[in-house]
């Protein structure tokens, strides 16, 4: 039997993405970010989330999409996975959807310019809406950051 999956929906460069709701701590408006030196460009820095210091990355930068100025609708989605807590800067986040597990398909090789390994599947919602579900473990893969750092040096 198909299971129901609740996902938080956010947008990034006109595409709609989803993260399972139990991986999301909160969704915050933009707050001042403190830059951390010697980090990859997509790491925007750290924020104070109610007394806890949390690193924030720009998801556009993380996926190699051109970064834009943050707007009023920009949001920081705080996710927790793999014992890591990280904030994702996204263009907007304003929906929670129920996705049936049998409506999720394996991702094609490249989708909206994002490498397949960051995607756990594509869900079809309604008639024409496509939701890209993120593979958080890979998005938060720290080895990749370290490689990037070494590349930068």
């Amino acid at each position: 039997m198909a299971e129901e999956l609740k996902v938080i929906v956010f947008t990034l460069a006109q595409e709609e993405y989803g993260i399972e709701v139990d991986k999301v701590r909160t969704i915050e408006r933009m707050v001042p970010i403190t830059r951390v030196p010697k980090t990859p460009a997509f790491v925007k820095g750290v924020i104070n989330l109610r007394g806890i210091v949390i690193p924030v990355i720009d998801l556009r930068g993380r996926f190699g999409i051109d970064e834009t100025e943050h707007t009023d609708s920009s949001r920081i989605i705080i996710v927790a996975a793999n014992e890591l807590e990280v904030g994702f800067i996204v263009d907007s986040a304003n929906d929670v959807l129920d996705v049936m597990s049998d409506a999720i398909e394996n991702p094609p090789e490249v989708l909206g310019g994002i490498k397949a390994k960051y995607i756990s599947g594509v869900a079809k919602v309604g008639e024409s809406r496509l939701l890209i579900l993120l593979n958080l473990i890979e998005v938060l893969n720290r080895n990749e950051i370290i490689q990037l750092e070494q590349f930068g040096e």
Partner: protein
Amino acid sequence: MEMNQYMSIFIDESNDHLQSLNENMLRLEQQPEDISIVQVIFRSAHTLKGMSATMGFEDLAALTHDMENVLDLVRNSKLSMNGHIFDTLFKCLDALEAMVQDIINGGTGKGDVEELVQILKAIVKGDVEGKSSAKAKTAATASTVSAQLLLDQYQLSVISQSLESGHRAYYIEVSVREDCLLKAARAYMVFDVLERNGEVVKAFPSVQEIEQEQFDRGFSVYYITQAEEESLRDQISRVSEIDSVSLTAVDRESLAELTKSHEQANQIKSAKQETAAAEAPVIASSTVTSKESAPVRAAAATAPTSGNASPRTIRVDIERLDSLMNLFSELLIDRVRLEQLASEVRRNDLTETVEHMARVSADLQNIVLKLRMVPVESVFNRFPRMVRDLAKSLDKKVDLIVVGAETELDRTVIDEIGDPLVHLIRNAVDHGIESISERVKLGKSEVGTVHLRAYHSGNHVFIEIEEDGKGINRPKVLETAIKRGVVTAEEAKNLSDDEVNMLIFAAGFSTADKVSDISGRGVGLDVVKSKIASLGGHVAVTSKLGSGTKFSIQLPLTLSIIAAMLIKLGNEKYAFPLSSIVETGSIKRSDIRTLHGNRIIDYRQTIIPVVSLAHLVDSPAYNDEDETETEMLVIRKGDKLAAVLVEEFIGQSEIVLKPLGKYLAGNLGVVSGATILGDGQVALIVDPNALIK
């Protein structure tokens, strides 16, 4: 009555009192003449007794009651402490601890205290040398008489004169019934009877204390009368609610005995116990003056802080503190927002209110931040006792010197670090420090020293355990390691001394020649290592054969407050730990010279390197190259100095260290952590050690 709700309070407070008893007993062992310490001990024991009795733990109450009796004599200078009494009292504390532990584990708190109670009773009766255990209770009436209360010279001569003039002298013990409500009144009636027939020479407790009902169930008097024993007994028994009366006639012989015991008491007071020692050579070891027998000397530094009045505290669930802290941080953000709005609205009374709120919340912040921090003292304070007992049982002499007990650590770390430290200290005393004879042979002082130090450094707290014992024997360690298959013979050849030292942390490793019950089973050090690693710290060991070993534990501060200097670079703020700052000042650009491509300045007749913080953190908004005069911080790492160029000093502040989050953990260069400033913004903390190469 429903007692469960009081149980946790009882347990907490009992532990506190036991701790305080332990500490003060150790202090007393050092300063046996200091009656004020006895007072503190007495009060703790008394409170403990009251609490246990209320909660219905009778064995606890019984034991503390008898301890109290002994302490009462000491406090009134009727008895002076000696090795035997100390040992007995320490045993009592252990028994009490065991019983409280049993209660914590859901038991009934019952314990076999009979033996200890007997010994304590014997001490109260004057057997201050521990003879009773050998001689048992064969002593005749005379010795019973001689005991209980010691008469002074005057009272003795009064009795002896009365005897000569044909009066009778009695030693009378009276006990009232347990359920007696007005003990003082009954006692008064007894005294009334006595005084009608003769004269009370001496009463114990004193008449005054009896009148104030400061006695338990019984009291005793020396009494001179012409009345017959029988009629006296009869009259006293007729007073209602009197349980029993016992009269012992005092004759010349027992009086002589009394005189002797009086002399003996004097001798004890002046700490000369040759006579006693000669009489009972078996117990000679326990009659050395307590100063000598005390193997542990608590560091002078810790003594005053663990002082008399215990601080008034309440207990709070740590989760509540966490949520308090988080809520407060949110409040701060709103405060800043309000300040902003107030500056836009420009209404005086609003601005004033917001400013006041800012001040109050700043104070509040300080308090909230400090709540979670606990001095390591709460872990360290059990060690003096532990080392004392260990040293005694191993027949070694060991001084434990504690430094930096006030160093604060996050509560969660404090809770976990106790066991590893116990292991390491046991190890130091058991394996590290040599036996007395060995030390003398090596030309070392008889007394071994164990240093226990704690201090802050940057993002870490260091705890060091250093002893001046035999040190790690490299060939022996290697031999064992190869035998146990920890390393191969080939590998062993290439190991550095430090690597060899680390082998003792390998699982299943032990170099002790014989297995003792204290340590040496080869479990321990590997557990210590993994425990410390699980706390995110690590342990290192340095050793010099023949002169000692030092274990150094480095612990992270998951949450800790340090004093820091806040500085500004453009719109960014950074914090420098104040502990590493030597001086702040400013230098002219033209004073910076170049030497072999390195920029240096002349600072108080020494040449020190110049570091540009803006350059190190790739500051986007500030560049010191453009300035003619720059602010600088002189920082220190060990004996090396360096000047760090910054744009502007903001000021000194207490900051909370926060981790940057696991995602960024790893090599961050000059940044060691972050802190949240009063305005809710995150500022990065610079690691001065990374600035000095």
